[in-house]
């Protein structure tokens, strides 16, 4: 019998919740796995983020050796924030498209397996866009953009002319009629200056008697009917770039209301798995094969549409319905692959638990500024419901257990409340470590923060979800801090200052510790990481504004967004969970131990760069 390893990733599953549900017998399948082997907490990465931790899972190394330190990086030439997962390169010639390469370095375990002739199937792996070629079947997950190149920009359609666009969305005002011609907004056309949007026309009619919207799409299906408060099916569309070229994509509609005014929503336009703009799978045609076999599925990395929910474009029920269908899509592809899985390595990631916890944590935390008892009652423990759902899904995995199969269920990090936000840049400004031009004061409306900062007087700045960079001479474009004693003084000032931060409103310290990169990272890519990492206390996180290099009006403020749970705090406080149907040799498992464990079980020597050790 050939050996098999099945890994089910449940993004963001929090140990305290898992343990409590286990105790109450509510996770029978996870219980069974534990009875066969092991349950414990698993150490995550610095910082505790999906792309960072899963990259460490894949490579068995700390982030310093795989180069993924955060969702967000900054360009030291321009100080501008950018997505850190993939790199878009300009076209090499007049007739080729821009290229995209993954920024994740190091050797993933599927590469080690491929070299040993062991096959892999990896579904929805974060930070694998575009995926490694020649290592089996890989479908990329978190990091795959929508057709506009972002992580998800939907469109809200309304007949109310007073409504204006919110963050990360397109707004389309509709004519006041029951038969309307409008359009779906597709990718940007960057071949013309200034850029324009490519659109495709749709016709929308209201059937008031049946309370539904009839949408003629010009795509496939050509006509759909979507009931009020319901999601329609995936519609494949084409956006005409020229007489000759069109860009395929797919979209789902949600009908928010039909009266008194018509309002509906179009999801971010996803890549069509049959013909994605960039490779989302390896081999390239694998995504098409999957879609042929299991039906269309979200290809966008962050498939759950938290932005529209956060913006109030649809309600809890709509968000949960969408989470459910993403989960179902994932389950279908998992079952399809498990049915033909005979040997080697299988991996699938369910991201939905992470997205549900981000949005609904406020319903389980009475101390959260967004706590809403009525809603909490109506939603009936959406987080626990999701955990039970995950467990139910595992039945088909547990049923496959045999003596030649290693089953691993794990999360990449835990979860916690995000009650209060801390603005690192505002604090740096208060400390005199960061200067603004023209005597400006930190404020949210500094539209391009990098241009508002006086770099000639700035010693340090924050970009990303906890990172602080020194404005180093020779590295940053307008760096002033000399490496050595001067840089060390700045580091020390930041470390000491931040450790003393107390949230006077809540009478609690906000920050657990500050890590220097040398103390947490090693490897070839350490020089690309932030110089310092802020490890927040439970309940705190870096502010929305600081994350993209900007400023808040106040140092500490309530987080009133629906995005109310988070995990980017002190990594020691948000370990993940690890279930295996095999006893472990030792406790204190770390996510870097997983690749060596899997390789060991399959009888393949680990890559010498791997830092972890097999648990079995």
């Amino acid at each position, binding site marked *: 019998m050939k050996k098999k390893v099945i890994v089910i990733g449940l993004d963001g599953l929090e140990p305290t919740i898992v343990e409590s549900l286990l105790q109450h017998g509510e996770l029978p399948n996870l219980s069974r796995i534990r009875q066969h082997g092991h349950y414990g907490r698993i150490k995550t990465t610095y910082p505790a983020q999906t792309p960072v931790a899963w990259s460490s899972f894949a490579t068995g190394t700390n982030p310093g050796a795989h180069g993924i330190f955060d969702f*967000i990086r900054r360009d030291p030439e321009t100080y501008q924030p950018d997505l850190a997962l993939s790199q878009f390169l300009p076209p090499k010639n007049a*007739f080729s*498209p821009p290229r995209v390469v993954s920024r994740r370095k190091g050797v993933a375990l599927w590469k080690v397996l491929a070299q040993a002739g062991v096959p892999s199937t990896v579904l929805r792996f974060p930070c694998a866009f575009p995926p490694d070629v020649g290592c089996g079947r890989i479908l990329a997950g978190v990091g795959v953009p929508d057709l506009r190149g972002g992580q*998800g920009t939907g469109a809200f359609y309304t007949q109310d002319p007073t409504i204006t666009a919110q963050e990360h969305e397109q707004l389309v005002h509709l004519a006041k009629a029951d038969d309307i011609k409008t359009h779906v907004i597709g990718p*940007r056309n960057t071949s013309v200056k*200034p850029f324009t949007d490519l659109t495709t026309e749709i016709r929308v009619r209201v059937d008031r008697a049946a309370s539904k919207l009839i949408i003629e799409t010009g795509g496939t299906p050509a006509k759909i009917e979507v009931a009020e408060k319901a999601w329609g099916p995936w519609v494949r569309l084409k956006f005409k770039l020229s007489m*000759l070229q069109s860009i395929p994509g797919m979209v789902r509609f949600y009908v928010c209301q039909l009266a008194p005014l018509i309002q509906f929503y179009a999801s971010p336009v996803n890549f069509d798995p049959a013909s994605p703009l960039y490779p989302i799978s390896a081999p*390239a045609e694998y995504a098409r094969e999957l879609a042929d076999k299991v039906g269309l599925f979200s290809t966008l990395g*962050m498939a759950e549409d938290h932005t529209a929910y956060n913006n109030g474009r649809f309600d809890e029920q709509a968000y949960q319905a969408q989470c459910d269908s993403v989960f179902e899509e994932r389950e279908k592809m998992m079952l399809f692959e498990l049915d033909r899985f005979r040997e080697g390595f299988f991996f699938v990631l369910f991201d939905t638990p992470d997205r549900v916890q981000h949005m609904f944590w406020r319903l389980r935390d009475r101390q959260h500024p967004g706590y809403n008892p009525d809603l909490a009652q109506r939603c009936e423990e959406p987080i626990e419901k999701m955990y039970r759902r995950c467990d139910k899904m595992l039945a088909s995995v547990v049923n496959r257990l045999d003596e030649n199969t290693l089953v691993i269920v794990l999360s990449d990090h835990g979860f916690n409340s995000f009650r209060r936000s801390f603005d690192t840049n505002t604090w740096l400004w208060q400390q005199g470590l960061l200067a603004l031009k023209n005597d400006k004061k930190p404020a949210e409306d500094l539209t391009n923060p990098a241009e508002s900062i006086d770099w000639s007087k700035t010693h340090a700045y924050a970009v990303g979800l906890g990172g602080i960079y020194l404005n180093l001479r020779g590295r940053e474009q307008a760096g002033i801090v000399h490496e050595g004693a001067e840089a060390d003084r700045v580091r020390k000032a930041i470390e000491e200052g931040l450790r003393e931060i107390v949230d006077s409103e809540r009478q609690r310290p906000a920050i657990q510790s500050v890590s220097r990169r040398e103390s947490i990272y090693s490897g070839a890519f350490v020089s690309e990481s932030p110089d310092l990492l802020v490890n927040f206390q439970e309940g705190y996180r870096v502010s929305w504004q600081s994350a993209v290099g900007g400023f808040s009006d106040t140092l500490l403020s309530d987080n009133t967004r629906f995005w109310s749970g988070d995990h980017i705090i002190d990594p020691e406080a948000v370990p993940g969970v690890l279930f295996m149907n095999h006893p472990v040799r030792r406790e204190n498992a770390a996510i870097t131990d997983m690749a060596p464990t899997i390789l060991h079980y399959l009888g393949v020597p680990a890559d010498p760069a791997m830092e972890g050790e097999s648990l079995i």
Partner: protein
Amino acid sequence: MRICILGLDCAAPEVVFGDERLVNIRRLMDSGVYGRLESVVPPITVPAWMCMTTSQDPGSLGVYGFRNRSDYSYEKLGFANSNSIKAFAMWDQLALEGKKSIIMGVPPNFPPRRINGISIGCFLTPDPVRDEFTHPTSIKSKITELVGEYPVDVKNFRTDRKDWLRDEIFRMSRKQWEIVHWLMREQEWDYFHYVDIGLDRVHHGFWNYFDKQHVQYEAGSPYESVIPEYYLWLDEQIGRVMESLDEETILLLVSDHGAKRLDGGFAVNQWLIQEGLLVLNQYPKEVTPFNKLDVDWSKTRVWSEGGYYARVFFNVQGREPQGTISPADYERFRDEMKARFEGLADDKGRPLDSLVFKPNEIYRSLRNVAPDLIVHFGGLSWRSIGTVGYPELHVQENDTGPDACNHAQFGMFVLAAPNSPLSGVYEGARLLDIAPTLLDLGGYEIPDSMQGRSLVAGMEKKQTDGMNDAGSEKIIHDRLAGLGYV
């Protein structure tokens, strides 16, 4: 400027320009100029590719098809090989200017031309395992190291074993393209020219499953998608090449001729016998190839070679050993024959609409032994069958094996160059215009021997000053949209 030519043997403009799934080709069309490309008469792989690279017509090259009369005897036919064509080609011009070329599978290229660079044999290579088919010879072992045994063609592609044929064609083409990508990446070149012969073989083998107008078309055949799949696969390969080229390269996709359905074959020698123009001592009892017939040359006035088109020869006094036509009567007789060919009907009695050419009228000069007439039966909807002994003149089976497709007069081209002033559809381009156009865009001398014209002659070339990246900041900013954490 570097020149990269991806030759797609037999690529049909209606397929290349009509299938929107060919996304890479579409992108290239959008960034360049494209259109139908009129081939030479005859529109045949040999000599068409060399007509393109030398910009000389078949008469001037002295090659009228794969097989050519070596002299005015009745028997001697020679197969064209690379030594048959010594005319000055684009790579010779580049060599004069000190540049290196790679030519791969550009027919005829056996024995491999000894060019300044790398030369790899074409489908005419008799045995790629035993023969030296590369120049320099060391390249052969590198090829074998990369892909194992290197196939130059699918032997016996006229077959009813369609599964085998499809798999063999793909197997060959995968290996060839692997070498294409390797050569492009690893070797030095200023001129790269590859000819994919797999496409031609796919057309001949599967056109009847693809073309709904074909007499043998059957709906729902499992082979219906073989041709589109091959084009899709080619599009992928082309996409890979497009991504690998630098900013200073001209890229041309081009075919030597198009493809069209075969309605049948016309037994030309059998017809000549019926007409009393070709006289046999004994009429065969079974279907017999022309060279096995017992011809009474003293009474014969006309005979023909078969193939996709007819090469018709006259038995002329003082030219052929037993000539019957007096030289004084030659032109009158030729006009008469031309009219009789043009008057032929199809199997249902409708005009066959054949095209009949006098070589001296269509070629700038005539070298070697030219046919007296060249006939495209039914404008190439009908093949020329040289074999004799059929019950009818119009036959469905082909004397050289199952073949569903003939060549069409119009092939296709897509030309993209950073400095090209042309865009959109181009009407009226001819095969012989390709070489002068490429040399012109590339900044090379156009030799006087070239007969075509540069499509960009007298036009101002575009400046190639890199990409405009205005607005990229907005794009970077938008990459974080919807991340949730921000």
